[in-house]
């Protein structure tokens, strides 16, 4: 075995310590797989049809779906907002606001820091299938490396004839973590917005 020259042998403990420290830092900082779901997400839903029998607009029109999420460790909070058009301009139409469901709060939101799987319960009215009554839906998504949140919204309400109805949704990230402002956290239920209040997504 080749012996190291004396000056290199003297440096060996220093180098070993430096490499050990670098490995420890890499383990702590670089090998973590957890990602943040915090921020603003949007998805365009298909019109009412074979692929979408759950969330749709007036006369089966396509809708825009927006997810506002706050993440605190493994806990999630936030809301889902429905837009009357896929261009995300209006959440309600002024002419018939009581027929439109604008938004709903997330409950029991969680993200698994290892698998990056997101789950929450949505208790709200649902445009199209339940615009006036509260329906309970279960959302289960997976946060991918491509900054997309893909998964299903499934009715989880045994008292409803829609129980088990599911919708495949893929959200794209629109807002970075920490950029949510207070105006995006306003959610009026149909009963509170009977006079034609609208939400501008711009």
């Amino acid at each position, binding site marked *: 075995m080749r012996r190291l020259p004396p000056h290199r042998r003297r440096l060996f403990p220093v180098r070993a310590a430096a490499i050990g420290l670098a490995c420890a830092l890499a383990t702590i900082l670089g090998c973590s797989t957890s990602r943040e779901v915090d921020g603003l997400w949007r998805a365009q839903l298909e019109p009412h049809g074979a692929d979408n029998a759950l969330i749709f607009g007036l006369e089966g029109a396509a809708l825009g779906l927006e997810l506002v999420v*706050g*993440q*605190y*460790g*493994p*806990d*999630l*909070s*936030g809301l889902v907002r429905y837009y009357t058009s896929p261009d995300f301009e209006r959440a309600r139409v002024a002419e018939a606001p009581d027929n439109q469901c604008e938004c709903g*709060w997330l409950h029991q*939101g969680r993200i698994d820091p290892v698998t990056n799987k997101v789950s929450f319960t949505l208790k709200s009215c649902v445009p199209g299938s339940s615009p006036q009554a509260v329906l309970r839906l279960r959302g289960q998504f997976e946060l991918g490396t491509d900054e997309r949140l893909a998964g299903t919204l499934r009715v989880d309400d045994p008292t409803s004839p829609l129980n088990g109805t599911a919708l495949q949704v893929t959200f794209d990230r629109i807002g970075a973590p920490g950029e*949510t402002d207070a105006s995006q*956290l306003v959610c009026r239920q149909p009963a509170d917005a009977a006079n034609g209040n609208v939400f501008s997504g711009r």
Partner: protein
Amino acid sequence: MAPQHPTRLAASLLFAGLLLSRAGLPQPVAEPPAPTPLVTSDVADAQKRPRTLAILPFKDHLVTPSDLFAPQGQVSRDNYAASLESVVLRSLEATPYVTVKPPARVREELSDDSALQAVGRAAQARYRLGLDLYLGMAAARAQENLKESAEMYRSIFQDVSDPKPYADAQFMLGVSLVDLGRVAEGHIALKDAFQIQADRRFRPNFFPPQVNTALANALVDHLSTADPLHPYGDNRRMHDLATRLGVSALVTGTVRGSPDGPVLHLAIFGVQRRIIEAEIRVSALDSSDRIDAFLSRWLACAPIGQAVASSRSSGKWRMDTSGSYALYARQPTRQDFHSVGFAAGVSYDLRPGFEWFGRVNMYTSLSDPYRDLLHSFNSVRVLGGVGFTLRRGPLRLFVRPGIDLHVLGSFVASTDADCKFLGLDHPLCDASTVSNLDQDLLAGLNLALGGQVHIGRDFFLALQGSASSYFLPFSGTDRLNYPLSAEIGLGYRL
């Protein structure tokens, strides 16, 4: 009667007046006083402080190697050292604005110091153990104990107060080293022993012949190479001794032989400049005039009113500023939140090994991983108490028990994500998950462990870790308690 001329009348009246005035008033001194030189001590100065000096026991090196193994009574010697000490003492005592500590008082102060007595007892125990081991033929373990004993004696200036125990330990250290075959180290140890007590005698047949040879060689080496101006060690040790005695200068003397008879090497060590400020080599016989002149010259040149090194004020105050880190062993958040800040402290040595201290810490918190802490938490801690210190070379260790008063800023935490994202007033926010520490003050006990490493003349690097336990208010410490902190900073000894 013929009338007198007016001018002559006036002159007669003036002469008569002068005669009358001289008859009624004291006569002026015929000869003016002889002019005397104005000296510093003639100048009245309320601010002028007396210079305090200590005369260390003079060393007598009037020994010869041939006397080394002679019985004590067979060598008759004049005690030059004691008589020259008296000459120096009389000269300094006659000088105004000088306060002198004679050798007897120096010995007394060092002997009566309880802290030094404790070290002395430990040194004596080490010496006895070392001697027993040496007599039991375990020279290797003996020399370890004897070396430790000698170092302890040196640290308490035993060579000044009573040199014999120190010399015993040092001689036995040298003897054990020679026994072990470590002749060079033994020679140095024996030479150092003669520096402590040069007139030591030994029984001729007590030690093996090689030890007797080593003793003789060491004495010859000591007499030919020892520095007579530093009979008690280097300038650093002299400074430490002067500081302990609370004097601004030390007077040392060494009497040595020469072809012209015994000579005195007299030196004055100044604390302020930490050097030998004046030295003279005079005959030990009838040189009192030269010694007087030498001391006068030094006193005339030494600045008056210089700070007197006082053992009560030198190096007693310490100040430091540190960066500080803290976390709490009990907190309302699910994950630890870390606090960083700034600390400043002061301490004062009440006596060796004992101090009081005061510290102020200011903290601001960093976000915890789950962001349960809704906003930054700022607080101020005030700590005070006493400390027990241990000094080893440049390192000073301390243990500080004390009282901790923690003034809290606003502290609101929640484990509910809805409260954090939507606000505390939102209907979805569960109020039962919100902790709002409404007490302004927590009080408890603190224990700190730390050390100071002197990195410059009076600068030191300070490291400290501490833990506290709050118990007041009685119902307010269940959510935030047991802070652990670490500090690192720089300080200065005043």
